[in-house]
């Protein structure tokens, strides 16, 4: 059960996942995929927190993860509600079609 891992590797893994999440957010035009990518990013940061907490043997990392979880739940519920709404109004999930500002 005992593992010895270097903290760098864990944090790097989190970073890599986070970067993948970013890529996902940017390259996808479909809002659902963007929301998924955001979830990935949240998870990655949760991983980093947990890793840090375990490094020092403190519960704080996990506490943070719990908060992230709560936030993710809230975010997803609102986000999905919005997606539904958007889809009904615009018949599309293309983020570029949804621009209404005249930039």
């Amino acid at each position, binding site marked *: 059960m005992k593992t010895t891992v270097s903290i760098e590797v864990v944090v790097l893994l989190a970073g890599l996942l986070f970067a993948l999440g*970013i890529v996902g*957010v*940017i390259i996808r*035009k479909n809002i659902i995929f*963007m929301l998924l990518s955001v979830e990935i990013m949240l998870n990655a940061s949760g991983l980093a927190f947990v890793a840090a907490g375990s490094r020092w043997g403190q519960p704080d990392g996990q506490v943070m993860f719990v908060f992230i979880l709560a936030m993710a739940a809230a975010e997803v519920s609102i986000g999905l509600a919005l997606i539904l709404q958007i889809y009904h109004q615009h018949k599309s999930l293309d*983020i*570029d079609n*949804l*621009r*209404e*500002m005249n*930039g």
Partner: protein
Amino acid sequence: MDKYLWLIPALPLGGFLILALAGKQLTRASVAIVGAGSICLSALVTIIVGGAFLAGMPANAVYTQTLWTWFEVGEFSAKITLTLDVLSLVFVFVITFIGALIHIYSTAFMEADRDYARFFASMNLFVFSMLVLVLADNLLLMYLGWEGVGLCSYLLIGFWYEQPANGNAARKAFTVTRIGDAAMAIGLFMVFQQAGTLVISDIGANATTIWQPDSTVVTITALLLLAGGLGKSAQLPLQTWLPDAMAGPSPVSALIHAATMVTAGVYLVARMHAIFALSETARLVIAVIGAATLLLAGLTALTQYDIKRVLAYSTISQIGYMFLALGVGAWTAAIFHFMVHAFFKALLFLAAGAIIESLHHEHNMFKMGGLKDKMPVVFWTFLAGALSLAAVPLISAGFYSKDQILWYSWTANGGSPVLWMVALSGALITAAYTTRMMILTFWGESHTPVGHLPGRRMTMPLVVLAVFSVFAGFIELPHNFGHFTLFSDLLHPVLPETVMRDNIPSEWLFQLLAALATLSGIFLGYHYYYQQPARIENLRRNGLLASLHRFWFSGWGFDALYDRVLVKPFIFISKVNKSDVTDRLYTGIAAATGEMYKLLSRTQSGSLRWYIMGLVVGAILILGIQIML
């Protein structure tokens, strides 16, 4: 008598104020009375004060009268002080006397003009300024008069302001002389810095202790002051304004641009002789400039058509003689020539004015002719002036004054054979163009009918001046003519004796040569313009001579040169930069802000992906900075 000194300039000033403030309400007659009367009174006061001055010469040979302190800062102090010595007396006499005659002449000449009062106001102001100039006891007050005459000259050249050409001529006159004035102002600063005062007599008294002879400082100071003189006296290289200044009414040309103002430079150099005496270089420069100017202007005068332009160039040329005399150290000769020149040149201008008016404002000499019998008074008086200008031996005043200069240009300490040669050829040219002018105007066929003859008020001053132009020469006779030196004796309290070189040749020879030059000049003019006018045409056909003629006619191309080198670039720079380049900097900042705003507002596109990109880039930057640090 010295407490009446202030009256001399005050009278014209009073005339000016009355005319300027109330000129509209006055009738023409009263304008004439105020305008001319103030000057006549001033002339009268001059004669009385001058007589008293000469009769009971005070110990230090000056009358001074301090009116009030102008301003006083620290160690600098300028007072409004008038001072009369023999040098200024000569000038004051010439100014008021000739001025009075010219004013009388003008009352008739300007009779028909709309702005009668304005004319006399300006003329009175001019006389006032000129009197302040010559009576000033310090250089600053002199500068006041100096600029004042410039202003009046401007006003009077541009008197007929409706024609743009007149306005331009006026502007040119003021600007060109102003260049000299600016140099002179710097000269004043140098004088003050070194001498600690601007009072002329103090400078004169202490000059040798203040400056090392022939030091660079004194040379520069002298040259800067000289620059002022060159501007006012229309000497090389600032001579271009004077011919154009003939746009003004003829009495103006007579008073300002022949008799008085243009000789202010001569007065300045004579007045500051203490400084100039200390610098060999400066005097050489004066002499060379004088010689060059007299030759150049003489040759130009030979080619002009406009009678007033001929006279203008001859004025430049004659003042060149005065500068030559000053340069070689013949101070009194210069002043003598100034006085004689003032008489005959004023006469010539007034007579020319009379002719021009009679011929319906015809200036071209080639369209005159045959006036000898039609206008006898004008003819005879003009002849008297012309004789003097040409310096016909023995019978004209011009001969005595000019001969003296010729003589000194070789024999005085600063003289040299080259200068003499130039002066002699100048005499020949002078005689030639004078003859040409006389013949074209008075002999030959009549080309333009004579309108009306000048009245009494115009001819009277002509006659008086003619008498003076003939007889004024006799107050100073050459050494071998009985050595009668009334004039130079008079001036000696102020101006030093002319220092002569050793082993000088006989004066007879010089007089003979000068007379010969004059006569041959007359002969040349007579030959080409009276006997065989066809020859002129032949000469003109020669390509080389024709282009030379054009070159001389244009005043040796100075106008074009200045136009090209100074005026055009100035206007170009000025026009190019009309909307102010430095403003670009600030509008640039404003425009950049505007651009930034547009750029940033473009980023507010509503596109989520862009926002996230922005976030990522920001994160990259922040992390990058952290790595760098």
